[in-house]
Each structure stands twice: as C-alpha cells, then as structure tokens.
C-alpha cells in the first residue's frame, strides 16, 4: 500500500467525494488559492474551480451558518474552520442551528454538512492556536465527531462524514498533517463509532484519540520494556463512542488510563470513565487514571508547551501509576 501524508489523505477524500457527488463543495478561509493553512485542500481549486472551492472572508459565523443553510437546501458543504480555537466565533451557529435544527423541527429536515477543523499543540503558537476543544461538542447532542489519528483513518472517516446525513465535526490535528501512513488506493469508507485496538495487551487499557492515540502507542512501547503489556485503543470518533470496545478491554486488564490533549478538568474522556464505572465497575482493579492537558491556556514557550500537554513520558508515567495504585 502506498504511504501518503495525512494532509494528502484528507485532500484525496475531499477530491474523490467531490468527483462522486456534485453537491459536495468546500468553503472556508484560504482554502482555494492558498490550499488551506495546513495544505489539506491543495489542488482542489485548480481542479474544481471557485464554483466548488470557495475562499471566504474572515467570518466564522457566516461560514458555519451559510453551510447549514446550504445543507438544508440540498447541498453537502464541507466548511473549514482554520483552527478549532476559532470555532468559538461560529459557536452559536454550530450549537443552536447546525446541531439542533433537525430535532427542533420535528425530524423533518437534515443538515448534512461537515466542519473540518484542527486542534492541538506543538507548534509554539500559543493559547489561541493550540487548543483541543472537542469536549464541548461531546457535550452537545446533534453533531457527530471524528478525530482521526492516521492518514488511513482520516481518509476513510472523512468520506463517511461527507456521506452521512448528520452534521459531522471533523477534527484533525496540526501535528499530524505531515505524518505518513499506508492508505489503500481508491474508495473506502470507515464507520464512525468503531474504535481500533492499535496494540493488544493484557495489563492495562489505554484509551485515547487523535495525536495522543499515537503518543499512547509510543508510551506503551516504553512501558513494554519494563514488562507492562498495555492495550491501546484509539477511539477514532467521540460520537458515536465505542464504549463496548473499551469495556471489553478493561474487563480483561482491570486498569484504565485515559489520554487526551484537551484540558483535564471535565475532559470528554471522563465520559468514558463514567461509563466504565457504570457498566464495568467490577472490572476495575484500581482507580482509573487520566493524562490530559494542564488546565492552563497553552503557553507559547516550548518548555512550557511541552509541559502543558501529555508527552510520551507523562503517558508512560500514567500507565505505571495506574498499575501501582
């Protein structure tokens, strides 16, 4: 299988879906001529023209709201919000229109749209460009949420997101665009809500998503050298949430470590913890443990930034502690 970049996987998914379905189009800031801040729409403008690849003004609320209106009128917009930090500017449209219109209107309309955005730290670009805000949307009925960690997942999940009749928040990670992975040529779609066991293990379950799923895997290798056999699960989507896979694993291991780049306090993975408490109380041999971003605005200084989000070492530390508790 050919190895391609994460950004290419996204670009390919967009391109193939635009070829497949003429209702699909792309809009957002700098998505056309520039090809997207992280290059994920490169070449689309040249191929499809400004009819279907639309640069917009800096107007996040209008981008999300107009995508919603267009979706209700039969198109399938893929709107890009350049950084998830900016989604705050279109929050009302996302929360009160996109997520609610179908239900609020009695199930008689659909809002089939994708919001592509990206989050995460790692570039030293500080508090307004480094957040991981997915938790808010896990706490919001009405949108599905994909968080791919690999090129393979990115392509397959984005195709599903575009084809799904529900609004989907598709959250990429800025530090993954230039990572590579094997991706089969041609069409495939991956279901939302199916976690992937990326490393089978028997001592402790590590649950994560997005970039931290990869770091968790690295951490598992670190502790493997110490004789700890960790099972690593990449959730891949936060709604639907594949809690069964987690429960099955915890049943086997008795220990759970949750890893997220979101702020620690009230992190979305607390939901995973709560359900494990609910449905797997007796599986647990000790407290569940979490390794999350510090509850501080992400600082610019590389030293502080590194300390603010989970590292391979802090995840490994979490795994050790979970077994020590």
């Amino acid at each position, binding site marked *: 299988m050919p190895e391609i970049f994460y950004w290419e996987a996204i670009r390919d998914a967009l391109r193939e879906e635009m070829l497949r379905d003429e209702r699909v*189009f792309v809009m957002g800031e700098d998505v056309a001529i520039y090809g997207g801040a992280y290059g994920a729409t490169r070449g689309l403008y040249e191929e499809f023209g400004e*009819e279907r690849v639309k640069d*917009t*003004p800096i*107007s996040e*609320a*209008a981008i*999300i*709201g*107009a*995508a*919603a*209106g*267009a*979706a*209700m*009128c*039969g*198109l399938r*917009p893929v709107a890009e919000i350049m950084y998830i930090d900016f989604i705050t500017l279109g929050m*009302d*449209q996302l929360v*009160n*229109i996109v997520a609610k*219109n*179908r*239900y*609020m*209107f*009695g*199930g*008689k*309309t*659909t809002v*089939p749209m994708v919001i592509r955005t990206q989050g995460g730290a790692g570039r030293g670009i500080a508090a307004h460009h480094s957040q991981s805000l997915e938790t808010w949307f896990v706490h919001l*009925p*009405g949108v*599905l949420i994909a968080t791919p960690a690999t090129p393979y997942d990115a392509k397959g999940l984005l195709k599903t997101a575009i084809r*799904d*009749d*529900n609004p989907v928040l598709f959250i990429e990670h800025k530090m993954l665009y230039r990572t590579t992975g094997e991706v089969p040529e041609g069409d495939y779609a991956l*279901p*939302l*809500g199916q976690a992937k066991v990326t490393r089978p293990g028997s001592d402790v379950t590590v649950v994560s998503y997005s970039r931290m799923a990869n770091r968790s895997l690295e951490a598992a290798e670190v502790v493997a050298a110490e004789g700890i056999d960790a099972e690593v699960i990449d959730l891949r989507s936060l*709604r*639907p*949430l*594949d*809690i*069964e896979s987690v429960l099955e694993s915890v049943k086997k291991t008795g220990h759970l470590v949750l890893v997220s780049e979101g702020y620690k306090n009230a992190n979305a993975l607390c939901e995973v913890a709560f*359900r494990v408490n*609910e*449905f797997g109380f007796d599986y647990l041999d000790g407290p569940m443990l979490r390794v999350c971003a510090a509850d501080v605005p992400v600082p610019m200084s590389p030293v502080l930034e590194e300390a603010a989000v989970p590292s391979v070492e802090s995840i490994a530390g979490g795994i050790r502690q979970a077994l020590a508790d």
Partner: protein
Amino acid sequence: MAPKILARNDKLRLLKQMLQIRAFEDKVFELLARDLLKGASHAYVGEEAIAVGACAAIGLEDYITSTHRGHGHCLARGADLKLMMAELCGKATGYCRGRGGSMHIADVKAGNLGATGIVGSNIPVATGAGLALQMKKKKSVCLCFFGDGAANTGAFHESLNLAGLWKLPVVYICENNLYGMSVSVERALAVKNVADRASAYNMPGKIVDGMKVLEVYEAVSEAVERARRGEGPTLLECKAYRFRGHSRGDSRKYRTREEEEHWRARDPIEQFKKHLLEEGALTEEEFSALEKEVGEETSAAERFALQESPDPSPDDLYDDVYVDYEQGNTRLRRKS
C-alpha cells in the same frame, strides 16, 4: 421589471392572510392567558403587512427564514393554521411534532427554513440558502426576515458582506418595529435607519412603509426580480410597529401610550381594508364574511390543537436527534 399587478383575488388573499395572522395571535394570547398554551409567544400583530406583502412576491421554489416573531411569516408562507396551533400547544400533530413551539416552526419542504430563538441567527442560514440556489443555478430566492435589533448582531454583518460579495439571491427584510425588546432603535442603532447600512455591503437599501401591504409587496417584488436576474441581494427596511408588548408580561414602560395610539391609527389591516373599499374591490359585507371565515378557521385550529391532538409521547424523546442513528442507553448506534 415592474412587479406583477395583483388581481382582485390576490388582494383579497392578502387581506385574508393578514386577518388570519391577527386572529391566530389573538387566539394565542387568549390561550396563554387561560394557561392552555405554555411558553413564550411573540406577537406579530401590527406587522402583518410585512410578511404578507413579502411572501406574496415569491413562489413555491423560493425560501424564507423567520425569526422569534414568526407566526406571520409562517402563515403568509402558506402554513396550515391547525398544524401551527398544534405546534404552539406542543402537540404531536404540530409542524415540529411539538418540539419547537412558537419560536421554532419550520416547514422546510414548503420553503420555510424555520424560525429561531436566537436573534439574528437565521441571517447566515438565509445566506447559505441563497448560496445553494446560486450554486444550483436556480432562479429562486430566499427572503430573510429579521428585526431592527438583529441588525446590530455580528451575524448580520458577516452575512450581508458575504451576500454582497458573492451576489447571492437573498432579500434581507428588516422589520423595524422601533424596539428590540425594550430598547428603542435610537438607543441601539448608531445610525438612523437600518437601510443606511446597505451601502456597507454593496447592495441597494430601501426604506418601505411596513404598514402598507402593497408597498411591501412592490418593494420585495422588485428586489426579488433583481435577485432572480443574478444581480444580488437587497436590504429592505420595513418600518412598522408591534401593537402588543414584546412578549406576555411586558408592561411596555419603555414607550408611551401616545406613541402606541399613533401607530394603531395606522393599522395595516384597516389601511388595506380602506384601500380595497375605496377601489371597489371589497364591500363591508365581504369583509365581515372574511372575518367570520377566519374566525371559524381559528376556532377549528384551536379545536384541532387542544381537543383532537395528542401530546407527544415521552417515549419519542430521543427520536430524530440524528438521521439513521438511534440513541440507546449506553450508546448511539447506526441503525442497520
């Protein structure tokens, strides 16, 4: 291109719609007072000419977006009084199966993209509808209703800029009823008229007498034709007045009784009736008959809502949050 001259029948239809809106809302407020209807209802009484005149200018393939003060838009867009009343009463038979109530009526298939409880929040949606119509190369348009208060929201600005830039087929219809809740236009809007802002978005702006249904009809028709020709959006400001308080329980201490009287003397229904009488299109008897007919329809709607309609079942609470997925107790699953 001049707007189509309305035939007598059309005019009588407009009159009837205005009467329907008023009768419907009088009934709504009666039911609120009797506690048979819950929630908040924002009355359109006094502003009937805007929705009715505007919706007369569009066809079945066109869209509208509405507001928190949406009964008028709904009815003028051709909604069924029964389904509306049922919705306001939260019944399973209502437009939104009782989930939306007064502030969230929609009938997307019939071209009504819905009301909203968030002031200004449908302006981007209407803009997106315009985008869809443009991309599909339809000759259709979207009418976007909003209040004077909404003209100070960020959503207004971002949307009108986008529409002006992309020449989207949207007619932005500001219903300036002089107040956003208790705050008068002078205390909220930095300029005199909302229409003065049109030039900031490279679109024509026009002030319209919102108490005159034919003036509204003509202005909207012109803007619609412009949009259909691909020349882009228009901002119309219809000056009007809401006769009732903002919502129930509003003591209206932010405005004088004199001001209210002044505007009541310009009642859009009375004005239109007088006009029709004068041009010989209507007789007093016909008017009474119309009133009676509307009264009966309203009573029928009330009956339908309160006596013939079941409440939604709590068992259906989780239905339709998502398409093709079902929410179980532990997990949202794709239906197979």
